[in-house]
C-alpha cells in the first residue's frame, strides 16, 4: 500500500501561503486547550521550544528526554550560529534571499513552501531568543553582530561566541523550565521512547523505558511530537553525541510513518581527523572558522614537510582555485568532496594522509592573534586539547565527518507525518534542507518548527480531530497500549536472551565502517549493493551473538545501546536502498557515477525531483517506495555553481 503523500501546501502566492494558512487553520478555545495532552519526545531546540510554546498556550504537555536534563540535548553542541533574514548589516539580505539560498544550498530537493516559511519566521526567532536573554554577540554600539557562513554571500548569521547552540538551547530550556515550574509541563528525564501507540491509525501515545529503573511505562496523549534529532550515529563515528539515535523515528516508521530521503547525509568538512582505532567520537570545528581560515594541501604528492616549511608557491588553496567567487565559503557538501578528492589523489596531510590544512596565518597577520582569539578562542582551545597542537602556530588539520542528516520522517506542510496526530520537528523530519543543509540553518529550523510552526499546526489538528470528551478519550488501558507494551518487552527480552559473545559497540563499529565505506561521502551502485548484502548478515550475527551484560530492570547503558544499535542495523538497509535508488548526485548524496567532468555533482531533475518516502513492510522485507513530486514555481532549477 503506497502512501498518499498530500503535502497540504496552501494555495496562493509563495509569500502569502503561511499567512493564509494561519488564518485557515482551526483554533482551540483557551478553555478547551487544557483538555488536551500533548506528548513531546526530545528536549533539544525543537522539542524544548515546542513543549514550552504549547504549554504557554494552555495544553498539558509531557516532555521526554533520554538525557539526565533537558538542557543536555545535542542541539547544545552547535557552535557557529543561527541564520535569519534580518538584513542588519545592510548587505542585501531578505526573506526571499534566505529562501533562495536555502533552496539552492539544498540542491533543489526541498519543498518551496516549507523553506519560504522557514525564512519568513527566521526573524521572529532572533527576536524571541533575545527576549529570553540569549547573549548573542554584539558590537560596540550595542547592536547585534553578524558573521558569514558557507553557501551565502551575505552576513546573516547570529552567534554567541562558539556556543550558539548552547545559548539557544538554554534559552529554550529556560522557557521549558518556566513551564515545568508552573506545573503545566511534566518533564520525564532519563526516559527513552520505545514505541508509538496508534489507535485507528492515529497516534495516541507512547511507550517508554525509565532508564534508571528499567520500568516500561505507557503515556497517552492527543498528539505526539517527535523532536528526536538525526541518525548520523548509524556511521558510529560522527559529530553527534554518543546517545543520539534513530530509535524513536524508526519505531514511528515501523508504526506507519514514512521515512523520506534517508540517504541525504551531511558530511561536515571541518572536523578533527580520526587519530586512532579507539576513537569513539569525531569533533567538529565550526564552519565559521572558514570565514578566516584558508584551506590548502601541498601541491606535491606525499609532501611530508611540516606546513610552515612549505612555501606559499607550493601550496594548493584548492577551494579558492576551484570556486573563486565563494572560495573557502562554499557549502559543506562541496567543501567535503573537494577535501576527499585531494586526499584520494594522494595530496592529503598528516600521518594517515586523510586530512587537509585549515590555516589562520593570513588572518592572524591581518587581524592580530587577539582578534582571532576573540572570535574563535574556545574552538582553538578545543582543537589544542584534542590534537595537542597549537593552531595559532601550526595550521589545523581537518577532515570531513558525518554531521547531520537531512533525511527524516516525511511530514506535510503542517509537520505531520503519514500517521495522523504524529508530528516530527527539527532534524527528525526531512522537510527544509533538501539534499544539503547550509551552515547555521539547523538551529533556525529546530526553533522555527518548535516556536512558530507546531503551536499553530498542532492546534489545528486538535481543533479538527481532538477528542474533548474525557469519557471518550483513549487511555493507557486501551488494548493498543497492551499490545505495544508487550512488543517492547518482548523485544528487550529477545535481546537479553541472545547472550552471545560480542559487545554491542563492536557491532556498532562494524556497521559504521560498512556505512562509511559504502554509503559515505561517495557512493556507487557497487558499494551500495555490497552494503545491502553485508548489513543483513551483520544484523543476523548481532541477533545471534550479541552480549548484553546485566538485566533490564536497572540502570544499564548496554540495554539502551542494544536497542539503538538494533534499530540502526535495520535502518541502515533502508538508507543504502534509498541511496541506490536515487540515480543522481545531489547535495550530500554523491553517486560517483553521476558527476561532471570537473567532479561536480550532477542532478537528474527530470527523474528525481522528488522526495523518496519509504514505508516499512516488516523486518528484512524491502520497504515500499512512494514519491512526493517537488514543484518549483518560484525558483529556476539550475546547476549549483559556486565558482
Amino acid at each position, binding site marked *: 500500500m503506497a502512501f498518499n503523500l498530500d503535502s497540504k501546501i496552501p494555495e496562493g502566492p509563495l509569500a502569502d501561503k503561511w499567512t493564509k494558512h494561519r488564518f485557515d487553520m482551526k483554533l482551540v478555545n483557551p478553555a478547551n486547550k487544557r483538555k488536551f495532552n500533548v506528548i513531546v519526545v526530545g528536549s533539544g531546540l525543537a522539542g524544548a521550544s515546542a513543549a*514550552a*510554546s504549547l504549554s504557554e498556550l494552555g495544553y498539558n504537555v509531557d516532555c521526554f528526554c533520554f*538525557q*539526565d*536534563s*533537558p*538542557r*543536555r540535548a*545535542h542541539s*547544545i*553542541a552547535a557552535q557557529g550560529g543561527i541564520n535569519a533574514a534580518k538584513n542588519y548589516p545592510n548587505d542585501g539580505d531578505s526573506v526571499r534571499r534566505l529562501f533562495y539560498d536555502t533552496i539552492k544550498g539544498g540542491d533543489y530537493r526541498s519543498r518551496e513552501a516549507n523553506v519560504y516559511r522557514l525564512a519568513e519566521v527566521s526573524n*521572529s526567532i532572533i*527576536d*524571541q531568543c*533575545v*527576549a*529570553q*536573554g540569549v*547573549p*548573542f*554577540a*554584539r558590537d560596540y*554600539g*550595542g547592536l*547585534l553582530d553578524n558573521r558569514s557562513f558557507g553557501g551565502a554571500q551575505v552576513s546573516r548569521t547570529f552567534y*554567541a*561566541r562558539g556556543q550558539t*547552540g*548552547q*545559548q539557544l538551547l538554554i534559552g529554550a*530550556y*529556560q*522557557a521549558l*523550565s*518556566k513551564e*515545568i*515550574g508552573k506545573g503545566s509541563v511534566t*518533564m520525564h*528525564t532519563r526516559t527513552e521512547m520505545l514505541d508509538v501507540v496508534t489507535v485507528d491509525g492515529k497516534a495516541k501515545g507512547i511507550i517508554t523505558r525509565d532508564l*534508571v529503573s528499567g520500568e516500561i511505562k505507557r503515556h497517552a496523549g492527543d498528539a505526539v511530537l517527535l523532536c528526536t534529532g538525526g541518525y548520523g550515529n548509524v556511521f558510529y563515528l560522527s559529530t553527534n553525541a*554518543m546517545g543520539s539515535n534513530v530509535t524513536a523515528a524508526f519505531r514511528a516508521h515501523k508504526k506507519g510513518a514514512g521515512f523520506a530521503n534517508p540517504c541525504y547525509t551531511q558530511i561536515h568538512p571541518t572536523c578533527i581527523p580520526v*587519530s*586512532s582505532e*579507539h576513537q*569513539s*567520537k569525531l*569533533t*567538529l570545528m565550526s564552519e565559521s572558522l572558514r570565514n578566516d581560515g584558508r584551506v590548502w594541501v601541498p601541491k606535491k604528492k606525499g609532501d611530508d614537510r611540516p606546513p610552515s616549511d612549505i612555501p606559499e608557491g607550493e601550496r594548493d588553496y584548492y577551494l579558492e582555485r576551484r570556486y573563486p567567487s565563494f572560495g573557502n565559503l562554499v557549502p559543506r557538501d562541496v567543501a567535503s568532496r573537494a577535501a576527499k578528492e585531494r586526499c584520494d589523489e594522494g595530496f592529503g596531510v598528516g600521518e594517515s594522509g586523510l586530512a587537509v590544512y585549515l590555516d589562520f596565518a593570513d588572518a592572524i597577520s591581518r587581524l592580530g592573534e587577539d582578534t582571532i582569539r576573540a572570535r574563535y578562542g574556545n574552538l582553538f*582551545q*578545543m582543537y589544542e*586539547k584534542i590534537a*595537542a597542537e597549537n593552531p595559532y602556530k601550526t595550521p589545523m588539520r581537518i577532515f570531513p565527518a558525518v554531521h547531520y542528516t537531512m533525511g527524516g520522517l516525511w511530514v506535510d506542510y503542517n509537520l505531520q507525518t503519514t500517521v495522523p496526530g504524529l508530528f516530527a520537528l527539527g532534524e527528525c523530519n526531512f522537510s527544509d534542507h533538501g539534499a544539503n543543509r547550509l551552515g547555521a540553518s539547523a538551529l533556525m529550523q529546530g526553533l522555527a518548527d518548535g*516556536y512558530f510552526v507546531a503551536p499553530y499546526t498542532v492546534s489545528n489538528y486538535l481543533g479538527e480531530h481532538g477528542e474533548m470528551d474525557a469519557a471518550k478519550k483513549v487511555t493507557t488501558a486501551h488494548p493498543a497500549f497492551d499490545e505495544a507494551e508487550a512488543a517492547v518487552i518482548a523485544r528487550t527480552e529477545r535481546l537479553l536472551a541472545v547472550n552471545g559473545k560480542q*559487545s554491542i*559497540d563492536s557491532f556498532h563499529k562494524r556497521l559504521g565502517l560498512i556505512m562509511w565505506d559504502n554509503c559515505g561521502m561517495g557512493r556507487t551502485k557497487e558499494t551500495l549493493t555490497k552494503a545491502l548484502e553485508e548489513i543483513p548478515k551483520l544484523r543476523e550475527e548481532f541477533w545471534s551473538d550479541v552480549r548484553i*551484560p*546485566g538485566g533490564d530492570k*536497572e*540502570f*544499564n547503558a548496554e540495554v539502551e545501546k542494544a536497542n539503538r544499535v538494533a534499530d540502526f542495523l535495520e535502518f541502515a538497509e533502508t538508507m543504502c536502498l534509498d541511496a541506490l535508488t536515487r540515480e543522481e548526485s545531489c547535495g550530500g548524496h554523491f553517486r560517483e557515477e553521476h558527476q561532471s567532468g570537473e567532479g561536480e555533482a550532477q542532478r537528474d531533475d527530470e527523474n528525481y525531483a522528488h522526495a523518496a518516502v519509504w514505508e516499512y513492510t516488516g523486518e528484512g522485507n524491502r520497504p515500499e517506495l512512494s514519491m512526493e513530486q517537488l514543484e518549483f514555481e518560484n525558483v529556476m532549477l539550475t546547476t549549483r555553481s559556486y565558482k
Partner: protein
Amino acid sequence: MKITLHAWRQKDANSPGGMQTREVDGISKDMSFLEMLDKVNEDIINEGGEPIAFDHDCREGICGTCSMMINGQAHGPDGGTTTCQLHMRSFQDGDAIHIEPWRSRAFPVVRDLVVDRSSFDRIVQAGGFVSANTGGCQDANSQLVPKVSSDLAMDAAACIGCGACVASCPNGSAMLFVAAKIGHLANLPQGQPERYSRARSMVKQMDAEGFGACSNHYECEASCPKDIPVTFISDMNRDVLKASTCHSDK
C-alpha cells in the same frame, strides 16, 4: 601505557558502594579519558562482568553530562577541561587513577559514577528564566545592550551545568552554578524585571535541595571547565541581599 584504575562501584542509590581496583593495559596516549573507560568496559564485558556506568554524551565538552572526580579533582588534572576532553597524555605510564562520582547530598548516586543532578533543573525551574512567552517580542535590535554587559552575560552563560563546582567545593555548595545563571540574566536588560525575585527564588530552592554554604575556598572556580569566575557569586550575594531588603516586593 599501563595504569591501575580504582573506580567507585555502586549498584544503585540504595546499595552500599566501594572502590574496585583493576589493572589496565594497552592504553594509548591519544585516547580520551572516556575512550580509556570504553576500553575498560569492553574488557569487562568480554570477561562477562558488568561495565562501569558513567555519564557522557556529546564528548566535546559542551553538554555537561560527563562528571567524575579523577584523582581527587573534578574533571581531572587539566584546567578548564571536562572529563570527555581530558586525554590520557595527561597521565604517565604506570599511574594509579582514582575515579569517584560527584559527592553531594543533592546529587544522589544512580549507579557507579552516575549521579542524579535534577536538583540543578529544579533550581532553574524555580526562577532561572525570563518570563517571555513565545511570540510578540519586539525587534531584537530595538534594545541596545552594551558590549561589556553582553560579554559579561556570556561569560556567565558559558556554564554547562556539569556540577563540578558542587563536586569540588569542600562544602558541597552550588553557589557558582546558581550565580552563573543569575549573573547571565542580571547582566542583560531583558533580565531586569525579574532580577530580584529570580535571585530570591533560586537561592531558596538551592537551599531546599541541601547544597552546602559557600565559605570562599574558590575550588569551584578552579575546577570549572568553563572557567566561570567567582565574582558572579559576589554579584549574586549583593543581589540577594538587595532582594531581601530594598526589593522585598514578594
